[in-house]
């Protein structure tokens, strides 16, 4: 067993690694900016080229912060769902949040085919995507919460989430079937996910949701630990199963819902990071896992973002593909190397 000191050191190391990845992420891109200049722009010292400061403060920094919020938020949601359902396959989207969001966005992009051209005009504002996505998630979320308050069995919620996902995916495909190619393409671009394009204002809103979700998670840590023994044990130790279930679903929705609204459906991170961290840190104790997963999620997302930018080139790849392309081999490698699946 690891000593307390070893756990603390690992988490401090992850924190340091996160700082390094953040600087690396800001420094690399279509234009590579030296570390010293990155420091200078961030701390307000004179910078060799004014464009560098502009690039960093207006583009790369908000994007890097979005990446950290997205990675850590999805990873924490994944942990919450995996513990709540005691299921290693659960992730932030098992409740059907991203399907709800994609339904909202699909209606925004492709609804004009169904509801006429006037419909699209209402949705042309800057916030339209965020609102459409949030409304979609909210609809599914409300249904899941109503179900969770009525149901005794937590596993049934998992099935209900999956059913909602299938249902909304089917409606999306019907919409797509009737849509002109241009609308369809817009929808597909959204589904690739995107960390850029966020103004400081939007980053601020995202940060508020992230903080609320993380604070609710922090308050649930004790109950999450009791759930490691199963619901019956948890109840016998004084855990209020229904209240805890509600809080966990709420935190997941705030985190994953807001992230999907601003960055699109980012795959894989939420499912994989908790497993990555559990393979590295041999404990299921949430007091240890929680900070490690926040750092781990942020690190992985920053790295994926660096790769998707193809540093030095003019091109970039869709972030949603990169997360799986990088993440899946890492998880497989860790599992094969350790020959043991910690859950």
């Amino acid at each position, binding site marked *: 067993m690891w000593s307390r000191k070893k756990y603390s050191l690992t988490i401090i190391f992850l924190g340091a690694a996160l700082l390094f990845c953040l600087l690396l992420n800001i420094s690399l891109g279509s234009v590579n900016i030296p570390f010293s200049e990155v420091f200078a722009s961030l701390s307000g010292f004179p910078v060799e080229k004014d464009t560098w400061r502009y690039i960093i403060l207006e583009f790369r920094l908000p994007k890097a912060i979005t990446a950290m919020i997205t990675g850590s938020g999805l990873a924490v949601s994944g942990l919450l769902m995996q513990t709540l359902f005691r299921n290693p396959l659960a992730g932030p989207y098992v409740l059907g949040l991203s399907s709800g969001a994609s339904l909202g966005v699909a209606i925004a992009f492709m609804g004009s085919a169904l509801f006429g051209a006037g419909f699209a005009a209402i949705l042309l504002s800057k916030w339209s995507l965020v609102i459409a996505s949030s409304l979609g998630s909210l609809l599914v979320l409300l249904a899941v919460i109503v179900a969770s308050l009525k149901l005794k069995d937590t596993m049934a919620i998992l099935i209900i989430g999956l059913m909602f996902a299938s249902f909304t995916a089917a409606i999306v495909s019907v919409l797509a079937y009737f849509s002109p190619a241009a609308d369809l393409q817009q929808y597909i671009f959204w589904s690739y996910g995107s960390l850029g394009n966020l103004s400081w204002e939007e980053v601020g809103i995202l940060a508020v949701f992230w903080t609320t979700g993380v604070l609710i998670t922090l308050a649930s840590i004790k109950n999450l630990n009791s759930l490691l023994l199963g619901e019956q044990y948890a109840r*016998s130790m004084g855990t209020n199963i229904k209240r805890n279930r509600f809080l966990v679903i709420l935190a997941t929705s705030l985190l994953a819902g807001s992230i999907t609204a601003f960055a699109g459906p980012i795959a894989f991170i939420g499912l994989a990071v908790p497993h990555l961290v559990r393979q590295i840190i041999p404990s299921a104790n949430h007091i240890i896992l929680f900070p490690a997963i926040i750092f781990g999620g942020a690190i992985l997302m920053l790295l994926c973002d660096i790769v998707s930018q193809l540093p030095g080139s003019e091109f970039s790849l869709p972030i949603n593909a990169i997360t799986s392309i990088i993440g899946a081999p890492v998880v497989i490698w860790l599992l094969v190397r350790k020959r043991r699946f910690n859950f």
Partner: protein
Amino acid sequence: MKNKSSNSILKTSGLSIGYSEKSTNKIIVEKVDFEVNEHELTAVIGVNGAGKSTLLKTLSRSLEPLQGEIIINSKNVQNISSEELSKQLSLVLTEQHVSRNLSVRELIALGRQPYTNWIGKLHQKDKEAVHNAIELVHIEGLANRKCYELSDGQFQKVLIARAIAQDTSLIILDEPTTHLDIYHKAFMLKLLKQLTETTGKGIIFATHEINLAIQLCDKLIILKDGKAFTGTPKELMASGVFDSLFPSELITFDRQSASFRISS
């Protein structure tokens, strides 16, 4: 029953157990009346489906009693909060999906949850309780191991230590001897007996090990055909309940050795 004084931990009266489905109640056992006192080891015995688990679930408030009441430390179980109940009654369950990716000490420390603050910080008193529980079930050598490294018998002891750390006057165990070999079965029951003697806790457990239970337990609760027979092993032997517990062409009760045997 003997001893109606203040050291009664658990008492039921007019208790009917079973499941309620919509408007109809499906009663499994009626009039389960018994009392568990300090220092007493009580076994719940019955064939599969007789209602052992139903009784234990009702006692631990996972199921509502269909009739009658359950009194723990002179309070009606239905009227206390789950926080308070968690300080009176702890559970040891089998067939649960328990994470084994915890160290033995971490798992036992979870038993302190009813007493810890919002984030579950362990104070000196909690650490002492965990240490004490580890000593009581004799697993000092395992304390720093991970639970996935343990055998079923060892893990069972860890789960019992967790219940002890919860510092309740009553511990309920659901079939603590399943999956164990005959040596570990005897060892486990002996350990439970020892715990009642040293800690004063009342322990009630469901088991199929009827021969071991007759030898070790202070009281037995026999569930048979919707009825409950309670008393000391001697009282029950005298009443003749054992003679008709199993179909006599297969298993008979031998009064001389006070044990069940295959019919010859």
